[in-house]
């Protein structure tokens, strides 16, 4: 079983990454990756929702008939996000002031429904939770990475305002390139598409090289 969980985690983080392989959740990806901090915040909030929604969907998977599963999942996810939104506003108010903008955006994140459909409805509760976590962290990593690149090229900073999100002890993450005006295009939507395009191509090339190397190593052994 441990091998199975290992492959679930690998799927989520790399092989089947929400952004770079499934090309899901493009709307929040383009919208919030204007800085590394924004990407990180959105990613973490999404991860939390994804884990809980995967667990819930997996729990009710035998009760729900396939004909009405989509509306049921939509209601479930929308309710979940709204409850999280209210709870954070009430009890984690300071964090909410930073992340509040992103929470409502999670509802429109098709990756959540996608994982419910593709994984949680066919698998057990624990496996679904692991899948949610791995997919969420893969998403977080992708958003943070895109955000950092766009932020660096666009405004010459790294992790600006990270201390607002993570607390003052993370202020050391904040970096600024002095004397760099920034290329605004990178912050605007076209920059997002361009960066994503380059990253997708880069990932494809990397995977191809890896495959070739594996094939090249296998060949002499076979001969």
């Amino acid at each position: 079983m441990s091998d199975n969980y290992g492959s679930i985690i690998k799927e989520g983080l790399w092989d089947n990454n929400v952004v770079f392989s499934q090309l899901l959740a493009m709307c929040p990806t383009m919208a919030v990756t204007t800085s590394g901090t924004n990407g990180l915040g959105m990613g973490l909030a999404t991860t939390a929702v994804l884990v809980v929604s995967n667990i819930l969907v997996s729990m009710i998977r035998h009760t729900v008939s396939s004909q009405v599963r989509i509306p049921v999942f939509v209601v479930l996810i929308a309710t979940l996000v709204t409850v999280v939104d209210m709870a954070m506003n009430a009890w984690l108010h300071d964090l909410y002031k930073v992340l509040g903008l992103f929470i409502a955006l999670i509802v429109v994140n098709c990756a959540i429904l996608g994982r419910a459909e593709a994984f949680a409805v066919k698998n057990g509760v624990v496996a679904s939770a692991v899948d949610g976590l791995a997919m969420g962290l893969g998403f977080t990593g992708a958003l943070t990475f895109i955000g950092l690149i766009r932020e660096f090229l666009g405004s010459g900073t790294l992790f600006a305002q990270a201390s607002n999100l993570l607390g003052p002890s993370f202020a050391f993450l904040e970096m600024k390139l002095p004397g760099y005006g920034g290329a605004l295009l990178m912050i605007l939507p076209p920059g997002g598409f361009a960066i994503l395009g380059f990253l997708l191509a880069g990932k494809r090339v990397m995977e191809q090289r890896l495959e070739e190397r594996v094939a090249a190593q296998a060949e002499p052994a076979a001969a």
Partner: protein
Amino acid sequence: MNLEAIREKIGYQPFLLGVFALLASGALAWASSATGDAIAAAEAKDLRDSLSEVLPQGMADNDFLKDTVDLEKGGKTVTIYRARKDGEVKAALFKVAERGYAGDIQVLMAVDSEGRTLGVRVLKHVETPGLGDKIEIKKDAWIKSFDGKSLGDPAPEKWGVKKDGGIYDQFAGATITPRAVVKAVKGGLEFYADHRQEIIGGQS
């Protein structure tokens, strides 16, 4: 009959949807009532914090959250908090709102008895993160450019963003947002000028 067979029946589908809608409504109602008070308290604390932020230190010796007067502005009630020192009204604090790029931007401002802004802060907005959110004090000092301004200084035609011939900076990639804030502050100052007597004179 086992679950497999029941699941395929036509009557089961609306029933299932109904049950989930009911559960969802129940969960939302419960969450709303459970968090309502805490959210209201957190927002009241936010209000007190931000009121103290726009008002320079030492301007008031009263509890201005309690010293209020309600006035009409464009069909809506505006609550004005009055900061007093030795019984005299030194400043008025109130909220104005203007439509921004994505929704209403709520602006809190403090105006001294001469009609000069003491401070402006954005309380609530839904502008684009990374572009329009520079109106927040946490992200940018832009909002401080209103400090000390009044209706006559700069001249009325200069009350705009630079793109419109005014004196206030717009943000790269976001003009509508700062334009709305400038409009909101100008509207607030005009509102204050129109009601100065009621705010300063009316003893509560």
